[in-house]
């Protein structure tokens, strides 16, 4: 019967317990005072012969103190000292009860009865030593003392011995009360009224001090059984008392019951009645508990149902939401499909290649109706343009779950050809196996036509280039034949002119007048000049016909050699050569030597008027790291406005009388530089000197074939 306690009741009972403790202390002290001050009423209360003895009164005080100190419900200071004091008090009571009982049983006199106050012999009950407490009182102390010692001790089965001991003490008190009332003559077991009352109050107070435990729990529980108990027991006991009093009187007088028998009967009846009511209370409680359990289950089920309903509602909400999302997604998908359909030719085929869907554009371009296409294979559009392997490769790609991209030539229903740029996307299952293929195509017929036109134009161009190349080759061969014949045939007449004019001088010189001889000298000079010209022209022409042969070349060595060759020209002159540290480069050494020879020869020639000629050969790095070579002199220079003419064939900026030359040297230089993929330019100032710059290109250059045709190069 451990229901929830009613806190108000608990509170009240707690107050009662405190009151009981105070009552016991006050009762005890007043009795002791009565002894000291000889006021009998304080120890008897009523006009009765039996007084509470000093020892008993002191024990009452101690019990009251112990109970007070062990009150519950308040946070109190000095917990350990309080506990020690409470337990000590209870212990003293136990000891006194035990000793007093021993005195009764064994007839000893331990001298404890007169310690607090002398009890006159006249007060003594016959057969009992004055001051010795009643047997029942001693027993009660032996019960209440341990009860207070063990107040908070609980057995393993949730029993509080203290409370049961208290019940025993209460019964003892009742018995003592009966003894006082029913006993015809006071005896050793007769207890004074204050003692009986105090015992009863203390016993009740002790139970009430732990109002939520065991018996206390019965008093405060909110269970139906406990409520029944609380309302029925007082009423039952009252009725029992009302009926029992006259009955016991009658029993004593007429049935010759002794007072003990009557008392025990009354106590027995009361106990039985209480027990019976308690049993009923238990039954009520159990049904109450069952009821409560049922209600709990109903509540639980209700809660469960409610939460289920809530969950269902939430699920529904979620469903609605996801439906809305799906609808939005579907809408978006539809929009995208619409957009796709606006641009592309779309078809879906199953895994066998059978068409399961086509969009309007597909129908439009293929000229087949949708009905004609669905269920067909794409072979219906095959133009026969692509080889079998083309489609095999395509099916292989998409069959392995990969996207295929390519251009396909198709045939429409009317036989016309159209080109599409196609992307075929396999839709695969979770295992990567294709389920169907979606083909998205774009009409590229026009582009293809344009490409075809471009291709044709290219072909034509190629052909033209080929023709032109052939023409050029022919022209080149002609040129070669021409230069060969120049070399061979043009020189012969020169030689003849030279030879015969020489012979004329030699053989008929004496007969010729000086004027004629002078003219013959001019003829000689002319033929020599002409011979030089022919030779240089042939050199220049030959340059174009030989392939460039690049090799790593030390330019410093080359320049030194060239200077050695030119040494005869410096005789009688003061020439200062300033040669920088030139890098080794990849070039055709034969041709590059020609460059230096021509440039240095020019420099020597045009510094002739200088008393001190300075000719510098150097280089500097361009921004791309390639070297620029420089040949600089302090010669007569030239006017920059003629710079454009500088590298032309037969172009001369000076009169032959001043500076000899054919006007082919710089043209040759330019030709060699260009052949290397390089650049040549000049800077000069009239009478201040000139500087020639050139580069030799990088690495492998497009080489010119010996037949003169432009090699490589695609159009």
């Amino acid at each position, binding site marked *: 019967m451990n229901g929830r306690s009613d806190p108000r009741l608990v509170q009240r009972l707690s107050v009662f317990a405190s009151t009981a403790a105070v009552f016991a202390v006050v009762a005890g002290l007043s009795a002791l005072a009565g002894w000291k001050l000889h006021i009998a009423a304080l120890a008897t209360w009523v006009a009765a012969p039996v007084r509470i003895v000093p020892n008993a009164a002191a024990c009452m005080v101690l019990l009251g103190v112990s109970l007070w100190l062990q009150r519950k419900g308040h946070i109190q200071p000095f917990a350990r000292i309080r506990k020690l004091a409470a337990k000590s008090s209870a212990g003293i009571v136990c000891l006194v009860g035990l000793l007093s009982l021993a005195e009764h049983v064994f007839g000893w006199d331990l001298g404890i009865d007169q310690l607090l106050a002398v009890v006159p012999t006249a007060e003594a009950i016959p057969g009992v030593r004055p001051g010795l407490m009643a047997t029942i009182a001693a027993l009660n102390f032996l019960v209440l003392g341990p009860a207070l010692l063990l107040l908070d001790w609980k057995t393993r089965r949730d029993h509080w011995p203290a409370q049961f001991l208290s019940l025993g003490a209460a019964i003892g008190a009742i018995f003592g009360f009966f003894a006082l009332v029913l006993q015809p003559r006071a005896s050793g077991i007769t207890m004074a009224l204050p003692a009986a009352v105090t015992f009863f109050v203390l016993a009740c107070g002790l139970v009430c001090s732990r109002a939520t435990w065991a018996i206390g729990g019965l008093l405060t529980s909110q269970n139906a059984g406990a409520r029944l108990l609380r309302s029925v027991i007082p009423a039952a006991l009252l009725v029992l008392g009302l009926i029992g009093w006259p009955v016991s009187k009658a029993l004593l007088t007429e049935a010759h019951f002794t007072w003990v028998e009557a008392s025990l009967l009354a106590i027995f009846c009361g106990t039985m009645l209480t027990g019976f009511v308690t049993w009923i209370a238990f039954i009520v409680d159990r049904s109450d508990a069952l009821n409560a359990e049922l209600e709990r289950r109903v509540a639980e089920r209700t809660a469960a149902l409610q939460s289920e309903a809530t969950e269902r509602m939430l699920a529904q909400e979620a469903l609605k939401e996801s439906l809305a999302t799906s609808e939005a997604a579907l809408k978006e998908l539809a929009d995208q499909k619409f957009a796709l359909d606006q641009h592309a030719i779309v078809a879906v085929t199953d895994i066998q290649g059978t068409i399961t869907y086509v969009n309007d554009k597909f129908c439009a371009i293929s000229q087949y109706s949708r009905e004609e296409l669905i269920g067909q294979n794409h072979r219906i559009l095959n133009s026969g343009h692509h080889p079998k392997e083309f489609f095999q490769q395509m099916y292989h790609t998409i069959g392995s779950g990969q996207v295929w991209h390519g251009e396909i030539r198709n045939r429409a229903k009317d036989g016309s050809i159209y080109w599409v740029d196609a992307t075929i996307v396999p839709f695969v299952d979770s295992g990567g196996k294709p389920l169907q293929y979606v083909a998205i195509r774009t009409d590229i017929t026009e582009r293809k036509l344009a490409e075809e036109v471009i291709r044709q134009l290219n072909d034509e161009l190629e052909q033209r280039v080929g023709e032109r190349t052939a023409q050029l080759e022919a022209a080149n061969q002609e040129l070669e034949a021409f230069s*060969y014949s120049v*070399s*061979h*045939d043009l*020189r*012969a*007449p*020169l*030689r*003849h002119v*030279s*030879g*015969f*004019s*020489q*012979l004329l001088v030699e053989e008929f010189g004496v007969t010729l007048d000086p004027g004629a001889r002078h003219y013959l000298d001019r003829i*000689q000079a002319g*033929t*020599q000049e*002409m*011979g030089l010209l*022919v*030779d240089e022209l*042939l050199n220049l022409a*030959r340059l174009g016909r030989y392939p460039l042969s690049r090799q790593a070349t030390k330019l410093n060595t080359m320049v030194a050699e060239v200077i050695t060759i030119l040494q005869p020209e410096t005789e009688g002159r003061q020439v200062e050569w300033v040669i920088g540290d030139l890098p080794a480069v990849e070039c055709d050494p034969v041709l590059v030597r020609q460059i230096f020879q021509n440039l240095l020869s020019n420099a020597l020639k045009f510094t002739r008027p200088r008393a001190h000629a300075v000719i510098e050969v150097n280089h500097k790095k361009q921004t791309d790291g390639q070297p620029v070579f420089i040949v600089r002199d302090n010669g007569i220079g030239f006017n920059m406005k003629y710079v454009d003419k500088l590298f032309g064939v037969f172009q001369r900026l000076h009169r032959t009388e001043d500076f000899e030359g054919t006007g082919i040297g710089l043209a040759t230089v330019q030709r060699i530089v260009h052949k290397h993929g390089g650049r040549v330019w000049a800077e000069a100032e009239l009478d201040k000197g000139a500087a020639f710059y050139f580069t030799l290109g990088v690495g492998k250059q497009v080489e010119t074939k010996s037949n003169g045709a432009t090699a490589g190069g695609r159009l």
Partner: protein
Amino acid sequence: MNSDALDILLAEDSQDDLDLALHTLRREKLANNIFVARDGEEALDFLFCRGAFTHRSFDHPPKLVLLDLKLPKVDGLEVLKQVKSDPRTKVIPVVIMTSSKEERDLVASYHLGANSYIQKPVDFEQFRETVKTVGLYWLVINQPPVVESFQHLAGRADDHH
């Protein structure tokens, strides 16, 4: 020097060149016996003792052949080729004298066994110097192969003398 012995076969089609060359050779007294062939065929007939020259013998080859490359009928390179590929004539020194400065002519000539290659200078002074040097070298300085061994090498006896 035997006056009957032929010193030089000069194969030259140009009368002008011929005159200048002969003038020089004679002036320098380098060759008394000079035979002039005006085309390649004539030069070959002469060298191989055939046609108009059947009376000639392989025993008396010229000491030097001065060969122009540009010859009518059979050109100089062909003449060279035949001369140098026949055991009876291959030891005859052949000097190419030509106006051409073409590398391919030069290469081809040496390839076919030319003993020397000379470009005729335009300047007559130089021309004369060149001819003089060539004549001096091949006719005076150089030791020609002996006739006996030549005959032996020719592989057959010619009983003309």
